[in-house]
Each structure stands twice: as structure tokens, then as C-alpha cells.
């Protein structure tokens, strides 16, 4: 039988932590700030909003630090707060119809297109050349094209290497939902990457394949 999880004590009131807890929180937060910002950037798509999101999540985490269970994963706990913050902000925005031309992406999209365009499809790291030519910023731009619910799952997967179970826990949804969204988001991302590559002249646009 596992021992009951312990929560941190010593929170003397709302918004306040004792000195020891404050120091502990600051040290833990310092260890996740890069990851939190990276995830926030993928979610919000711009630096100012990403910084605001990290700030807001830090406030909530700080206030709720008394309920953090010692010995559990602070990073996962913080990212859960951060993604909840993001969803909360999104709900306040006008609802936007989600339509995506990425929905119908066939399997092995990049493999097929790379082969047609003369990029490597075999070797130790066959997609490396395409990714080097794309560069981080354009890959970020491709991620930004994914519909929200897919982008959030993909962000946690690609940025943080969380397991399906950890992503499900973070987003408070079933593991099966994570699995299916991740599967679709991978396919969508492949098409988005190719679109970005075409738009930036990295590969030649093929009008016959535009709707593939």
C-alpha cells in the first residue's frame, strides 16, 4: 500500500506562504520556467501573451502551493495550472469557428512529399535536412496552425515528452482522447510543415498536390 500523499503545510493565509515554502516554491519554479515559457509560447503564439500566461500561472501556483503534494512532479503540476489558465482565457474570448484544411491529411504525408521533392527518405535521420532548412521559427509557425485542442496536446507531447497518462492528467481528459488527438495532430503537423516549407520557398509548391 502506498503512503498517503502529503500536502505542504504552513500556508498562513490567502496569497501568502511561509519563508521556507516561499523559498521552495521559488526554487521549483526556477527549474520549470523555461519549459513553462516554451509551452506558453506554443499555446499563445506570441511572446507577450506567453509571458503573461506564465506570470498568471505562477500567481495561481504560488497561491495554491499549499495543496502541492510533496514528492510529486512539480513540472506536471505547474503545467496543469498553466494549461487551465490558457483554457480559461480562451473561453473568455469570442468563440471562433475551428476549420482546418489539415483535417484530411493522409498518413505518411511528409514521407510521400519529401520523396516527391527529392528530399531524403532513408538514412539514419532522413527528415533532418528538411528540418534544418525549416528552422525552429518555421516549425513553430507550423505548430501554430493546428486547431487549439490538437495544438495543446501536441505541445505537451513535443515540448515536454510527457507520457499519454501525464498529458491526460494535465488536461483532465481520458488517455484515449490524448491518444487520438495526438495521432491526428501528428498528421496535421506534417501537412502544416510542408505548407510552411512551400510558402517559404524551401520546397517548390506543387499545384496538383495543393489539396492532397
Amino acid at each position, binding site marked *: 500500500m502506498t503512503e498517503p500523499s502529503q500536502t505542504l503545510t504552513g500556508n498562513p493565509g490567502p*496569497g*501568502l*506562504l511561509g519563508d521556507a515554502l*516561499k523559498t521552495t516554491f*521559488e526554487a521549483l*519554479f*526556477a527549474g520549470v*520556467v*523555461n519549459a*513553462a*515559457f*516554451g509551452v506558453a*509560447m*506554443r499555446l499563445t503564439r506570441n*511572446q507577450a501573451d506567453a*509571458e503573461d500566461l*506564465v*506570470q498568471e500561472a*505562477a*500567481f495561481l501556483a*504560488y497561491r495554491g502551493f499549499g495543496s502541492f503534494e510533496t514528492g510529486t512532479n512539480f513540472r506536471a503540476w505547474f503545467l496543469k495550472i498553466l494549461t487551465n489558465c490558457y483554457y480559461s482565457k480562451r473561453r473568455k474570448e469570442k468563440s471562433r469557428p475551428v476549420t482546418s484544411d489539415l483535417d484530411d491529411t493522409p*498518413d*505518411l504525408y*511528409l*514521407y510521400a512529399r*519529401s520523396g516527391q521533392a527529392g528530399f531524403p*527518405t*532513408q538514412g539514419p*535521420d*532522413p*527528415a*533532418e535536412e*528538411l*528540418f534544418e532548412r*525549416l*528552422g*525552429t521559427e518555421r*516549425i*513553430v509557425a507550423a*505548430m501554430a496552425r493546428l486547431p487549439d485542442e490538437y495544438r495543446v496536446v501536441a505541445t505537451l507531447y*513535443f*515540448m515536454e*515528452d510527457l507520457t*499519454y497518462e501525464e498529458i491526460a492528467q494535465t488536461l483532465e481528459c481520458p488517455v484515449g482522447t490524448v*491518444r487520438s488527438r*495526438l*495521432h491526428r495532430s*501528428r498528421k496535421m*503537423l*506534417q501537412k502544416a510543415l510542408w505548407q510552411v516549407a512551400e510558402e517559404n520557398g524551401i520546397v517548390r509548391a506543387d499545384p496538383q498536390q495543393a489539396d492532397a
Partner: protein
Amino acid sequence: MTQLNRTNCEEAFRRLDDFLDRRLTPEEMKIIEEHLHICGWCAREFNFEASVLNGVKRKLRQLQAPADLLSKVLSELRAEDERP
């Protein structure tokens, strides 16, 4: 899981994501690996998909938070603490 052989690439492909994420049982992983060993087409496709996943992860993780973000957040938290 049914036994995989040269003729059921479709069965292997259906497990591509789970294989790459190592979400199969050791026995299932071994069966897929054996299939990839004998099927060049599947091996190329699986290898390419693994390369795509690793490429996206590698690139997306290069971003660093602005140098002053940590100090900004911590000073805001301390200011919050001092509010009556």
C-alpha cells in the same frame, strides 16, 4: 495481437504511433521489430516517422525563456506577498 509477417504491413502500420512512443508490450514491440527487420518498406516508413518526431522535438525545445522572465515573475510574487 496477431502474428505479423511479410503480408500484414497494414497491421504493423496501425501500431506505428504506439511503437514509436513505446506504448506496446515488450512482446508486441518485438513482433513489430521482427516485421521491420524483414520488411524494407515498413522499416523506411517507420524510420522516417521517427526522424520527423525527433526533429520536431529537437527544434521546439531550443527555445529559451527571456532572461528576465524568472526575475520578473518572482518580483511580482514578492510584491503580491507584501500587499496588505
